[in-house]
C-alpha cells in the first residue's frame, strides 16, 4: 500500500539535504560549541553559519537569533520574558493575543493572567478566522506592553494581517514617546515560515518564533528572533549560552539542520508555493464534488497555500481520520474526539462554526514532497470513508 502523508502542518519529513548537512556533526564534529579547543571551534563555526542563514532569511542581525528547542519554547521565552522583565518595575501590565493562537501562546497568556502578572485581552476572529485591526486598535491601552498574533493559523491556514498590526504597533509606540512603557509585537510564525514573507522589518515584528520540523528540518530545534533592545527575563538559568537568554549546551547537529532547512526555504520558496498551490487547487476541485461539505477558513488569498480545512456533515472527523489511516493516508481533524476534550476545535468554534460541522472537520496539509497523483487516491479513499460513515449515521 502506497502511503500518502497529508499532515505537514503537524510535522514534515526531513529534507535529504538537511540530513546530509547534519550528519557530520554527530560523530566527526561533535564538539561542544562552548569549548575553546578546535573541536569546540568547529562546532561554534557551524552554529554561527546556521545563525547567519536564519538571519539572512529574516533580514535581521545574527545576534538577534536565539536558538531554542522549538517554537513552544520560543513563545514561552518571549511572552513570559517580556512580562517578567517589565513587571519588576511596573504594577499593572496589559497584554493582547487572539482566541485562535496555538496553545504554546494561549496557555502562556492564561498562566500570566492567572498569576495576576498581566491583564489579558483575547481578540475575537471573524467567520474566516481573521482578526480585525480596528478591534485591535481599540483594545490597545496605555499599559499594553505586548501584542502576540500568529502569522498563519495551524488548523485552517488563515493568514493574519501581520504587516498592518506591525504598522499599528509602530504608530502607537511613536505616540507614546520614549519615556513611557514599551509596546512589543510578537509573531508566532511557525506555519508561515515555509511560505510567507518573514522579513522582520517588513512585518514590523519585535519578536518572531519558529520551529525546524515544520520546514523539513529536524525536531527539537527552533529559534526566537528578538529585536536588539527588547529586554526579556530568561525562563531558565544555568549557563551563558545564547546571550544569557537560553542556557544549555547547543544542539549543534539540529542547529545546522535548521540553518540548512531555512536556506532551502529561502532558495526554493516560490517554486514550492507554485507546486503546492496546484495540488491544493486540484484537491479543492475534487472535494467540491462531494455533497454536504463546507470549506473552513479564508478565501485563497488569505489562506496558506498548503492547508485545506473541510467539514463533512454526518461524518465524524476522527472516524474519517482512522478510516483514511487504514488506507495509508495521514490527515488531521478538529473533532472533539481527537482533541482530548469533548469540545470541538476551539478555533472553528471561535469562527462561529456550528458543532455539527466542526465535529466533521478534517485538515489536509501539503508539502513540497506531495504530488498531483496523490490527490486522486486521497479523494477516492475519502469518498469511500465518507459514504461508509454517513451510511452508519442515524
Amino acid at each position, binding site marked *: 500500500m502506497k502511503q500518502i502523508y497529508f499532515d505537514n502542518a503537524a510535522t514534515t519529513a526531513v529534507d535529504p539535504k538537511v540530513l546530509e548537512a547534519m550528519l557530520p556533526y554527530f560523530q566527526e564534529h561533535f564538539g561542544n560549541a562552548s569549548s575553546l579547543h578546535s573541536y569546540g571551534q568547529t562546532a561554534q563555526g557551524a552554529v554561527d553559519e546556521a545563525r547567519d542563514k536564519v538571519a539572512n532569511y529574516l533580514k535581521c542581525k545574527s545576534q538577534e537569533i536565539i536558538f531554542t528547542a522549538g517554537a513552544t519554547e520560543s513563545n514561552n521565552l518571549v511572552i513570559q520574558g517580556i512580562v517578567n522583565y517589565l513587571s519588576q518595575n511596573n504594577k499593572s501590565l496589559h497584554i493582547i493575543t487572539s482566541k485562535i493562537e496555538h496553545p504554546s501562546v494561549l496557555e502562556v497568556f492564561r498562566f500570566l493572567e492567572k498569576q495576576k502578572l498581566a491583564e489579558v485581552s483575547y481578540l475575537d476572529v471573524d467567520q474566516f478566522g481573521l482578526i480585525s485591526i480596528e478591534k485591535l486598535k481599540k483594545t490597545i491601552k496605555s499599559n499594553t506592553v505586548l501584542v502576540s498574533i500568529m502569522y498563519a493559523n495551524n488548523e485552517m491556514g488563515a493568514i493574519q494581517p501581520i504587516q498592518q498590526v506591525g504598522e499599528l504597533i509602530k504608530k502607537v509606540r511613536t505616540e507614546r514617546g520614549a519615556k513611557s512603557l514599551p509596546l512589543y509585537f510578537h509573531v508566532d510564525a511557525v506555519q508561515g515560515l515555509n511560505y510567507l514573507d518573514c522579513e522582520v522589518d517588513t512585518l514590523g515584528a519585535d519578536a518572531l518564533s519558529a520551529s525546524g520540523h515544520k520546514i523539513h528540518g529536524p525536531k527539537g530545534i527552533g529559534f526566537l528572533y528578538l529585536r536588539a533592545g527588547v529586554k526579556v527575563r530568561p525562563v531558565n538559568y544555568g549557563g551563558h549560552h545564547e546571550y544569557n537568554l537560553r542556557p544549555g549546551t547547543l544542539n549543534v547537529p539540529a542547529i545546522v539542520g535548521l540553518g540548512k532547512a531555512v536556506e532551502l526555504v529561502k532558495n526554493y520558496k516560490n517554486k514550492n508555493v507554485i507546486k503546492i498551490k496546484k495540488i491544493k487547487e486540484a484537491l479543492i476541485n475534487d472535494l467540491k464534488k462531494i455533497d454536504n461539505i463546507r470549506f473552513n477558513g479564508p478565501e485563497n488569498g488569505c489562506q496558506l497555500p498548503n492547508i485545506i480545512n473541510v467539514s463533512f456533515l*454526518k*461524518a*465524524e472527523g*476522527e*472516524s474519517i481520520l*482512522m478510516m483514511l489511516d*487504514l488506507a495509508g493516508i495521514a490527515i488531521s481533524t478538529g*473533532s*472533539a*474526539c*481527537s482533541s*482530548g*476534550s*469533548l469540545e*470541538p476545535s476551539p478555533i472553528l468554534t471561535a469562527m462561529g462554526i456550528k*458543532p*455539527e460541522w466542526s*465535529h466533521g472537520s478534517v485538515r489536509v496539509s501539503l508539502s513540497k514532497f506531495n504530488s498531483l497523483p496523490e490527490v486522486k487516491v486521497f479523494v477516492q479513499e475519502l469518498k469511500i470513508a465518507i459514504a461508509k*460513515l454517513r451510511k*452508519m*449515521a*442515524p
Partner: protein
Amino acid sequence: MAYSKVLMDHFKSPHNQGTIANADGVGEVGNIRCGDIMKIYIDVDKNDKGADYLKDVKFETLGCAAAIAASSVLTDLAIGKTLDQALAITKDDIVKVLENVPPLKYHCSILAEEGLKKAIEEYKQRKN
C-alpha cells in the same frame, strides 16, 4: 492514544449496523455538541420460557471510532438476552470487550449502555 485491535476490528466491520423496520423500541442518545449520536433499535420476542428477550439489536451511530465500536459490541452483548439481563449490561462490560479504551472514550461506552436502556424503556412504555 492507541486503539486496541479488537476496537479497530469492530470499527472496520461493525456488527449489526443498520435499522430495524417497525422496531419494538428505539433509544437515541448523545448530542451534536459532544459529537456522538447513537440510535439503538430492538426487536423483542418471547423465549421458550415465555420471557421477553432481544431477538435482534441494531445500531446507527455518528461518532468516533470508539463510539462505533462500542455500539457494535453492545449489540453483540445484547442479542439473545432477556430484557432483565440486557438492562444489566454496563459500560464496563463494553470496555472489557474493547480492551484498552482511552479514558476519554469511556463516554462512548456509557452512551451505548444508555442507548440500549432507553430502547428497552421505550418498549416497556409502549407495552403498558
